[in-house]
């Protein structure tokens, strides 16, 4: 497997606030993070732990206190706003209900970094807008004014605007806040799909633990102390990071709790043998990356999960091929 270049890479990044001559107030860090194209990354953490600050810093709206951020190998601090706008697009929590703005105009604002002096749209711009509308399924809202949209519809439209900006990285700050459950699931599913279909990296902050566990390719888990654990959702569950991160909120994270399901139609079927948490989360991981789980053992691909004294190991069989792993991540890279 070729080594993939991370789209976004931070080295010793510390985030926080500078105010006047006082020493900067550090919220979290140093953080060494990597973010790859085609991934949906969910940033989780209790309120006030600095999720928004991290997103604002990574997107260039706010200065980092220390360390560096590289975007496609370029130092973010040295990029001009116009340059950053071609690499990162944002969906923020800011209220944009400007009454007279219609949906198409709003989405076309996404072409801002590409259009000329007066903002006249070229054929190319219009095509990009149409692609964004199709991808986000917002064609039905086009003629409407922004203030006539529901919260869920508004989020989709804001996402379409970000898509029209056509950047390799899209960052969304709490896109599921204020949404009802079906809209939340719909949006998360849409984000998951977009990351896969368009090979964009999508970074979101959210409070939807269970949804994040189902759709995220990577989770950044922030705790109140400013620590950040990054990894596969299942890994973070298994190594206890979740318990730690939400410890202070008095939330007990039950490793065995089932969550509600998002149906992703599996293309290949696989069987998983074994009991216990490791097998349970292995099944979830396999479902997530697009497998259908088969109850029998007559499938072409089979996984056996064994757990001895809390240490899990995985055996993968495909025809005559047999491979063993002691990390779930390694198993997934093979599939």
């Amino acid at each position, binding site marked *: 497997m070729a080594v993939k270049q991370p789209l976004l890479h931070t080295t010793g990044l510390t985030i926080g606030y500078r105010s006047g001559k006082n020493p900067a107030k550090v919220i979290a860090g140093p953080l060494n993070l990597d973010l790859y194209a085609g991934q949906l990354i969910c940033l989780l953490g209790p309120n006030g732990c600095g999720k928004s600050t991290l997103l604002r810093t990574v*997107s*260039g*709206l706010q200065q980092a206190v220390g360390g560096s951020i590289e975007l496609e190998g370029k130092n973010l601090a040295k990029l*001009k*706003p*116009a*340059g*950053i*706008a*071609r690499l*990162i*697009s*944002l969906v*923020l929590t*800011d*209220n*944009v209900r*400007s*009454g*007279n*703005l*219609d949906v198409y*105009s*709003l989405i076309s*604002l*996404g072409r*801002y*970094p590409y*259009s000329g*002096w*007066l*903002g*006249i749209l070229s054929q190319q711009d219009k095509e990009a807008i149409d692609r964004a509308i199709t991808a986000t399924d917002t064609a039905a809202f086009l003629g409407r*004014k922004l*203030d006539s949209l529901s919260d869920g519809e508004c989020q989709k439209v804001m996402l379409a605007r970000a898509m029209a*900006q056509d950047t390799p990285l899209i960052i969304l700050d709490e896109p599921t806040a204020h949404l009802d459950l079906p809209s939340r699931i719909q949006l998360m599913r849409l984000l998951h799909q977009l990351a896969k279909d368009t090979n964009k990296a999508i970074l979101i902050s959210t409070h939807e633990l269970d949804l994040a566990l189902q759709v995220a390719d990577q989770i950044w888990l922030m705790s109140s102390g400013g620590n950040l654990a990054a990894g596969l959702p299942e890994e973070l569950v298994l190594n206890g990071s979740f318990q730690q991160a939400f410890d202070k909120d008095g939330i007990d994270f039950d490793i065995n709790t089932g969550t509600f399901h998002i149906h992703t139609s599996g293309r290949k079927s696989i069987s998983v043998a074994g009991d216990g948490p490791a097998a349970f989360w292995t099944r979830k991981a396999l479902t997530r990356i697009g497998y259908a789980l088969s109850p029998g053992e007559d499938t072409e691909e089979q996984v056996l999960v064994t757990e001895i004294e809390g240490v899990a190991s995985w055996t993968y069989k495909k025809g005559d091929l047999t491979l063993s792993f002691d990390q779930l991540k390694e198993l997934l890279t093979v599939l």
Partner: protein
Amino acid sequence: MNKIKILVLLSLLVIAFLLDVALGSVHIPVKEVIKVLFTPDSVNESWIYIVEKIRLPKALTAIIVGCGLSVSGLQMQTLFRNPLAGPSVLGITAGASLGVALVMLSAGSIASLYTIKELGISGSWLIIIASSLGAALIMVIIVSISSSLKDNVIVLIVGVMIGNITLSIISIWQYFSSPELIKDYLMWTFGSLGGVTGNQLLILATVVFAGLVISFLSSKLLDALLLGDNYARSMGLTVQRARLLIVLSTSVLAGGITAFCGPIGFIGIAVPHLARALFNTSNHRILIPACCLVGTVLMLICDIVAQLPGSQTVLPINVITALVGSPVVIWIIAGPTKLRGF
């Protein structure tokens, strides 16, 4: 659809323009007005004098004022993301008045149109610059305050208060002035489209045209600012620079007009809403010309009404713009929600 609206507005403009020139204490038939404009030889001389020296400059001033104040109001509403923003509401014209007053104070005279006339061309420029600087000063203060205050209503109240402080400073100075000077100043505050002639008209037109060009060229920046500073920045806008440009053109527009015509209210706040309602868009590339059209027509109509056709009396233009503009503001706040946008 838009073409029909533009045609209707343009024909309204022509009719209002001709009526504005025709009506007044001396009635000149519209047919004769057209003759004066195109074949001046065939009409009696007193009419030519009235039209060329008094009414034509006044109608042209109405057009300039209508365009300038409306566009400055539109820019402020977008910049502050506040449907109730406008040059007179947020104290920008008060700032301009202060600039004018300061020049007049140091010249030992007062801010009346007569003294402006006596100052000649360099004096006209001096007044325009002072007035624009006064407007810019208040703009900068309110912009810097508004960036730390998220609440629109608070920004509005702060703007009104700063306007009050500015007006108080002028009042203190007035208090120590002689009664004749106070009367002159009061006349100036009523606002007047008359008296801007010759070189002054040329200077005012140049300044306002420059402001309008800057404004039109920044229409893309204004569009981006509709979503707020953060989104604007994320789309590649250098927010500080954009703000500076918008503050500059707004100050030049509002300042220049206030210097010569006095603080004219309500046009700046009302016209952008009418333009948005009429053209149903938030695109500044369309809204800026639309504001010019609607503002011009409205200002000409206000001027026609101010002359109280058939009588010898002329009402101050500010009285009429308030009568026309206030219902629009009430409509924005209490009317159908469609107009609450900006």
